């Protein structure tokens, strides 16, 4: 007993403060790739190195235009694109507050003049790059296999904004793993450790979807978890906030294109906030939760 007390006193208060928009990652953290537009020539070499659909180019010969897309939703933060860039235009500076209400906002596009790009010796034509699915723009909820299990007023509910203010300072979250690699689970579990201590914000992880206001979904939604996910969603009390946590949950991540995955949470249930990261660090998850609650303003 005394030893427990002694240890507790020795350790003191371990909890770190958390300020959205002002929190910085600890030293060394890579975070998200950032492309410096002034240095980038649009050669497209990085697209080849990208293991997912996060980096891609789209050439328009008639308009003499090339667009380079960087999608944080698909990015797994592997940093393979950094060393391959001949112009040092890609850098990793520890950016992690990336959560957003729409997928559109997660995709950056960089326009180039195609004939200018071709002057670069590192130029890579679109034809020589692996075929990827281009960002489709405003794609949000597409009704999946089990859509009939969801009632229409649930899908179309605009009640959410109002209810967000009613929640005040308390939020009950049900976590659902829809096929993740357990990296996201590890970080979500870390939210409850003394350093992040989510309960101080009134955030509580509950055991049943019936007690929950929010679903925190990870994983690319495997074929064999889809029904369980939809049933869990159906059991949550309205207005049913959904947070898609991690690259897999946003668009399938590295598992995109497999026969066994659906490829993103919004292909099965509607999503309110998309939270990039592979896995997102605990501060990034907190930021995403606050964004879903409307307690922090979204970035432009």
């Amino acid at each position, binding site marked *: 007993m005394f*030893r*427990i007390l002694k*240890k*507790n006193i020795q*350790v003191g208060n371990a909890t770190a403060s958390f300020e959205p928009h002002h929190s910085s*990652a*600890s*030293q*060394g*953290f*890579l975070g998200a790739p950032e492309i410096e537009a002034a240095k980038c020539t649009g050669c497209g070499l990085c697209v080849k190195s990208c*293991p997912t659909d996060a980096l891609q180019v789209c050439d328009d010969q008639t308009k003499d235009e090339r667009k380079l897309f960087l999608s944080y939703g698909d990015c*797994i*933060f*592997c*940093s*393979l694109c950094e060393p391959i860039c001949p112009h040092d235009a890609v850098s*990793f500076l520890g950016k992690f507050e990336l959560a957003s209400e729409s997928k559109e906002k997660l995709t950056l596009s960089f326009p180039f003049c195609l004939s200018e790009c071709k002057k670069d010796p590192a130029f890579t034509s679109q034809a020589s790059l692996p075929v990827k699915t281009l960002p489709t723009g405003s794609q949000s909820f597409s009704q999946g*296999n089990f859509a009939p299990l969801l009632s229409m007023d649930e899908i179309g509910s605009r009640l959410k904004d109002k209810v967000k203010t009613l929640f005040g300072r308390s939020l009950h979250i049900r*976590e*659902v*793993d*829809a*096929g*993740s*690699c*357990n*990296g*996201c*689970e*590890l*970080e*979500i579990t*870390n939210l*409850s*450790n*003394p*350093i*992040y201590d989510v309960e101080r914000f009134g955030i509580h*992880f509950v*055991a*049943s*979807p019936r007690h929950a206001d929010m679903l925190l979904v990870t*994983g690319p939604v*495997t*074929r*064999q*978890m889809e029904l*369980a996910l939809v049933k869990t969603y159906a059991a949550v009390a309205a207005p049913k906030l959904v947070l898609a946590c991690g690259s897999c949950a946003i668009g399938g*991540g*590295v*598992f995109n*294109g*497999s*026969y*066994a*995955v659906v490829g993103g949470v919004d292909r099965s249930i509607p999503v309110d906030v998309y939270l990039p990261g*592979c*896995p997102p*660090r605990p501060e990034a998850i907190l930021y995403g939760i606050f964004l879903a609650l409307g307690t922090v303003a979204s970035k432009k």
Partner: protein
Amino acid sequence: MKRVVEVLKEKFGNRIQGSHQETVRELQIKIAKEVVIPAARFLVETLEMRFLFLFGSDARNISGCFHLHYVFSYHHVDQFIILIVEVRGEDLTFPSLAPYLPQANWQEREIQDLFGLIAKGHPDPRRLVLHEDWPEGLYPFRKDFIQNKKVPRVNGEYVFDRVEGDGVFEIPVGPVHAGIIEPGHFRFSSAGESILKLEIRHFYTHKGTEKLGEGKDSSHLLCLAERISGDNSVAHATAAAQALETLCGFQIPPRAQFLRVVLLELERIYNHLADVGGVVLDVAFGFGAAQLARVKEQLMRLNERLTGSRLLRGMIVFGGVRNDISDLDKKYLIQEIGKIKVDFDQTIQILWNVSSLMDRIQKTGIIKKEIVEALGGTGPIARASGVDRDFRRDHPYAAYQELLFMVPVFREGDVESRIKVKMQEVYESFKLIYEAVTGMPEGISIVETVPLKPLRSALGYVESPRGECFHWIATDRDGRIARWKIQSPSFANWPLIEYAVLENIVPDFPVINKSMNLSYSGNDR
């Protein structure tokens, strides 16, 4: 090893169709289908080899048939023997090994589901990997199955084993669990509080990872390998990288070997610490859980400082280790490890005197040594049941041969033993990191890689925090990856839990489960 082939030839004559040293440590023996069972039993029972795992591959576009690979280890001489069986033509059956070596049970069912080959005489031929809504006659691992095919859902039924009798009831749990854990289904049959039977039904997180790896280039394959089981990222990536390196027959620089040890041990420490903390949390001892969670967070921040990733991702590459460690970081690492060790030590000293914790973990969830051996259990679970096995020592890889460490073994096989093994291993890992960091040779940490050789195969293996982890990679005619087999330690260990819980009470299940800490994603892939 030539001797083994001779002995087999003596016994099985011309049904041994050829042998070939595929890599330095792998001897492949082609053998006729009808004698594979007696041959496998002969290797295990008479030559005292260990059966590791078995898997299929579709080589119809190369040699016109399916192949089955039976992998054995011969640890006296640090060699592996792979028996290769051809399944050809109309007859897509193969004799089942499961009645003799129960550990082949899940492996053969997996081959049935994914390749459509039929294990004749299998005691339990139900679906395993693919659930009941998968249509008959579609086999995703065959080469003619298109990767991104949209497969329709059909009506089907999975029948659980039933225990019947007065007062027996069933408790279904999952796939969505009460805590923040991965999905899987557990079906308990119990009378009162005692568990009479547990049947596990997994593969909810099956993502077709092995198939996704086919045709990928090596850097992308390793990205995928890191995401087989997130908390074992380094172990899986190392095993895959080693398979690629062995396949090409090249050595990575000695410094990279030591760096890999540092990364592997850092991963082991945070995993084991989390497991100890998890068990303590599950018996509702808040102080211990909070302290260990805090120490774990310190480790994750250390990981981040050294590699840029809290899960140590992106470091293991084909050809070495991506970032070298600076002298400054070395100093910082040793200093931090020292602090964390003191902190861990203090917490453990307190924990081991708390009777409410000891009451719950002693004699709980006992796994007998015979069960571990029959089902091919591995890792800390096996070592807690008196099975003295550790690939770091028995089949050394990376720089383990040059480092000194102990392999803790306990005999009781209960939750306490498993926790003790993990705690002791944490101390060994502290030592290993210190030794590896201080004894690291100078030089480069990564070398330019070569293209993969065509039509070759190789095995990579790692003693991950959960146990033995194997990656087997084969290339096609163009030197692209044609088959990637992942044998994760969880796949070997999950069936053990059905025995660990017997005669325990239902409320102890979470503690038993946590003490084993198996990965669902690693198992389901």
